[in-house]
């Protein structure tokens, strides 16, 4: 067991974790942040995407012990409680959500993209979410949702 401090969504948490625990497992099992999803546990589907120090990251591929002292943002921290982030609003409005399992992951990828590049082209949006697999939508509505926010 290792004692670490994790900064998640602006809150600091003192945790006892196993050295081989992934950030994804710690977020879900210890912090009860179930919005970050486990789709493959091997860094290939993007459903577990979070933002670490401003960069999108696959939380199933990062050990929690390596996240000490870094700023982690999950879907639960995207907007204050009771409010929606413009990307979330846009996702609803554009019909970008079907089963919803990949949704938190691509929203985090999109947030990281827009923070870096507030006016991306469609190709840039596609590249930013290319690591987020979606089996339901065919991606078009997801791209539209992101581009609508970018233009604002």
């Amino acid at each position, binding site marked *: 067991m290792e004692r670490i401090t994790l900064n998640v969504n602006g809150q600091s948490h003192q945790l006892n974790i196993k050295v081989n625990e992934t950030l994804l497992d710690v977020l879900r099992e210890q912090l009860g942040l179930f919005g970050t999803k486990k789709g493959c546990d091997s860094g290939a*589907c993007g459903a577990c995407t979070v933002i670490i120090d401003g960069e999108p990251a696959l939380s199933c591929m990062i050990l929690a012990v390596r996240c000490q002292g870094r700023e982690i943002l999950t879907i639960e921290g995207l907007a204050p409680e009771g409010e929606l982030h413009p990307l979330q609003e846009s996702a609803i409005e554009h019909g970008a959500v079907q*089963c919803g399992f990949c949704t938190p992951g691509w929203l985090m990828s999109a947030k990281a993209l827009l923070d870096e590049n507030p006016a991306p082209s469609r190709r840039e949006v596609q590249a930013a979410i290319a690591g987020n697999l979606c089996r339901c939508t065919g991606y078009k509505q997801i791209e539209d949702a992101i581009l609508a926010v970018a233009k604002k």
Partner: protein
Amino acid sequence: MNSNQSFITVGKSPLRADARDKVRGKGIYIDDMRLPGMLYGKVLRSQYAHARILMIDTSEAERLPGIIGIVTGEELPFIHGESFPDEPLLARGKVRYMGEGVAAVAAVDEETAEKALGLIKVEYEELPALFDPVAAAAPGAVRIHEEMESYKGKPLVRPVKGTNILNHVQFERGDVNQGFAQADHIFEDTFTTPAQQHCSIEPHGSICLIDKDDNISLWTNNDSPYRCRIEIADALHIPMTKVRIISAPYTGGNFGGKGGLKAEACAIALAWKIRNVPIKVLYTREEEFCSSIIRHPSVIKIKTGVKNGGTILAREVTTYWATGAYAEKGPTVSRFGGISSAGPYNIPNVKINGYLVYTNTPVAGAMRGYSGPQTSWAYESQMDIIAAKLGLDPLELRLRHVYQDGDIHTATGQIIHAEGLKKCLEEVAVRMEWQGKTLGPNQGRGIACMERAVKTPFGSAAFVKVNEDGTVDILSSTTEVGQGSETILRQIVAEELGVPLNAVRKATPDTAYTPYDASTTSSRSTFHMGNAVKIAAADARQQILQLAGKLLSTDPVNLTLADGKVLDKENPVKVMPIAAVLGQSYGSSGTVLGRGYYFPEMPEGQETYFSSQVVFWLLGAHGIEVEVNRRTGEVKILKVYAAHDAGKAIHPDNVKGQILGGISMGLGYAAYENYEFKEGNVLNPSFLSYKLPTAVDMPGVVPVIVEQEHQDGPYGAKGVGETTNVPLPPALANAIYNAVGIRIKSLPITPDKVLAAMQERGEGESQ
């Protein structure tokens, strides 16, 4: 006519209520559920495709701290299956595919359970294995199920004794031999299709709790709680009322994959032995690929006789469906495949044989399209082969033969109605400027269409409960797997009751409370459950009006509902909110519970399990423009045009979403998803090596909704989502032929296949 004007919400595209949960990460899926004292289960899986189990030694694993129990197939004398029960919960006596469950472990956490699997010793005696459905169907082939003759299948499942063929599907009309004799041209082609995995981003998962009296509670992401309940009760020989299925609030994708007993079987196996404690089993991605469910690989031989002018006289189709180690939904997949093997065309003489064959490969079953992707790949590819040989326009050849209202469906003998396929073809042709548009060098266009039967005849029931505050709950066992049924059912109820959409909620299915529904499959929910909730809402409406009539001292026939209020049609002053009618405290003036049930009307004497009569057809057409790189074999898709007949789109944006999503799944099947097997072993059980289309791979898509209203559908609606992937592969192959003159007959269409075909003609870059 713009029929939308007469509706409040039907035909509009209100925002989905579930999306608000999902975008915030607040949607609850099975992996997010935790029960007190819950254990975690893991399954040891076979390393052999076909082998006798000689010995299983679990003693060392049992001694591992944190292990609560281990179960093997020998302790579980049960077999399950929807229409042809043949599958144990865990292998008994022998394993029939690589990846089959052999033993299961329950532990305090997943890591411990996983560790224990490595301590279980199994001795096998390897048996000869069969991977190809044609070889497996041959007389004298090694038996995969020696005891097949003792299995008790549903009446329409017809095994061939002494073989690996567990279902022989036959349809015959007219005289094909005579038709071939009269034909000027005979076309004979063989097409093949590979496996495909659903790749729902959420894996299969279940939590099972069984008490000492065999009362079972199962929390699951299964798509169909009632079908799941009966399959479990039948397998365990217990009354179905001892089994309670509770759906997870949301399911992260289905596409047919979550219909049988997968994680359910593993969780039940453990909970049957370890009582009074909930046990959770969640599949890994590798288990999704190797041990859950796949689309049937197939070999399709199609022979067609055509007159000089292009009139098709006769068609004979023989299909071998590799169903893998167990029947699963194979009997009905092959039956639907049989019904539509000749295509959606008027052909006077048709003979269809379908052989569903056991193979030592992962279990094949339901997957979006449910035989449509295989059958249409063959008949639509051959339509273009015929057109090319006879110098006919492929669109024209289709339009000349395609079914229209009043025609007799060849395989079923049923009179066709609400057939919007011709319109779908015409819409696609107009959008892609089939006549007149000139394409560039190495560019080509292709078109393809399809039909598929909806599962018939099966029932759906619903309750519509109106609360004291005027809000409404729909109690229905349709599961929300992403398809948007929740929103559509809410729209129908809001429309019928004249209440705002946000006053209507849809309950999560639970067989203890929500009424019967056959399944959330086959694109049947909008039509069947839509009818059921519409009838239930109409019943609730009458009850509200009766109560209001008493309170307002008015004959209920003078009253109507709008905006959540009861209105007197003749006396506008008399207005009463529905909430007031029901009594705002303690339901003082009454309670309202509407009941609805829908079962399609069937002609007398019809067989009642997957009949030949079809209550509606799923129909669509795709057109594709491509550019082929003659040097590399790469095919760039320039545009996809997709028209599907929704009958009446209750939620048009949702229909478009189903079309766009179907295109990506169809594109994956057509060009990307290359399931690689070696002697029954899946070589690429991961998203890293099994390539799904990503955002950068998707071409531009023009979705078109055709509305050929169905007389029995709610507001004329039919189902649409299941087959939006189906016509894409043959449309792509036809476009490639149009571009560079090569014909690919096996899916997926990879650059190396295209290149090899070019090189055969002396083109392409040599390697």
